[in-house]
């Protein structure tokens, strides 16, 4: 049985091409839920003007499906809120972007 951490790890394969950092470290993964009928992933974008939304959700669905070996349903949603804030970035993403450690 997959855990939330397994799914989070799989989502690290999804890279935001504009910055070259994965969506987990960028803080774009809002929620991961595991239910008997399937796996649910909620993403947020940095802005509603972000055209990457469809690409990042497609990629997320693909990597989670691969991790789940198609055993269960996978559903990825892009939420309108909350808004992304820089504080959502992980220490490693901040370090790559030059934040003082």
């Amino acid at each position, binding site marked *: 049985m997959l855990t939330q951490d397994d799914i989070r790890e799989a989502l690290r394969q999804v890279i935001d*091409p504009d910055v070259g950092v994965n969506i987990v470290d960028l803080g774009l993964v809002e929620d991961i839920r595991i239910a008997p009928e399937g796996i649910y992933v909620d993403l947020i974008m940095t*802005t509603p003007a972000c055209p990457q939304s469809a690409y990042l959700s497609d990629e997320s669905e693909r990597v989670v499906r691969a991790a789940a070996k198609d055993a269960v349903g996978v559903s990825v949603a892009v939420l309108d809120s909350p808004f992304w804030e820089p504080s959502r970035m992980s220490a490693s993403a901040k370090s790559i*972007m030059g934040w003082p450690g």
Partner: protein
Amino acid sequence: MISVTARRLPLLMAGALSLAAGIIAGEGRLGWPVGGADLALVHGPLMICGFFGTVIGLERAVALGKAWGYGSPLFTALGGVALIAGHPWAGAVLLLAGSLVFVAMSLAVILRQREIFTTVLGLGGLAWAAGNLLWSLGGDAAGSVPLWAAFLVLTIAGERLELSRFLPPWRWRTPTLLPPLLVLLAGMGLGSWPVFGAGLALLTLWSVVNDVVRRTIRQAGLTRYVAVCLLSGYAWALAAGLLMLRLSPGETGIVYDAALHALFVGFVFAMVFGHAPVILPAVLRVAVPYKPVFYLPLAALHASLGLRMAGDLADIHAVRQWGGMLNAVAIALFIVTMLVTVLRARKR
């Protein structure tokens, strides 16, 4: 149900039609025997509104995810077709309609997220619509060029500004953005190229300091390629701004030609080259896996534009002509590179 690709591809292809006709018109202006004297008159509107406007409108509609948003690229693509068919007034009105839908999309984004970068994107949309309005009222296309230039510059600046939020916070980031922005807008409003150029040069310097390229250039693969496209584009934007400082009001000679093409070919096309592999997967749901060969069309673009600039500034017509022709070759090379990359990825 029609697939996403099947719905969006025709819009992109219609935009590409404007690109092809716009390039042919440009070659005609340079004196290459390509025919179509009427087409030469609408070179700028085809390139800026029919092509860039349509792809930017499509991208914004995809981002917003509202069906009505697709009216923007639909109208502008049809506007481009009308221009090609020899109906400049109908074309101008359709382009105006498309840009007004674009303004509505920008407003929807601002209402959802009130930030400086959404405002800059919105100002870009307004500049475009204002330029189209002026042109459709029977103005000379040249009178709309500062507004159209501002549309592209502000759209790119807004998108880069958005990404700058990944960088460490800097309290002077917004305060230092405002003077270049206001100078650029003043130049646009007054129709003064030297003022516009000063704003453009300052905005470019601000961008280099505040763009994530400073970090992403150290990464690898696609991310680094995008950073190289951006940085090389910024160099042309700076050159364009400095050339504009030398223009007198109403001047349309060789320095004007050099300044505009440094901006639209050097800066804007470098952005397109860098943005396409990132955006095509989102817009068309196709994979564009990075290949080092992506650098080849980029190098061809910059080399051919360098040749054209040399021809302009030394006033040697044949050099300018060949530079312009090779610009077209570089763009064609880029399109072929993207197509081959997408088709190869699909086979696997």
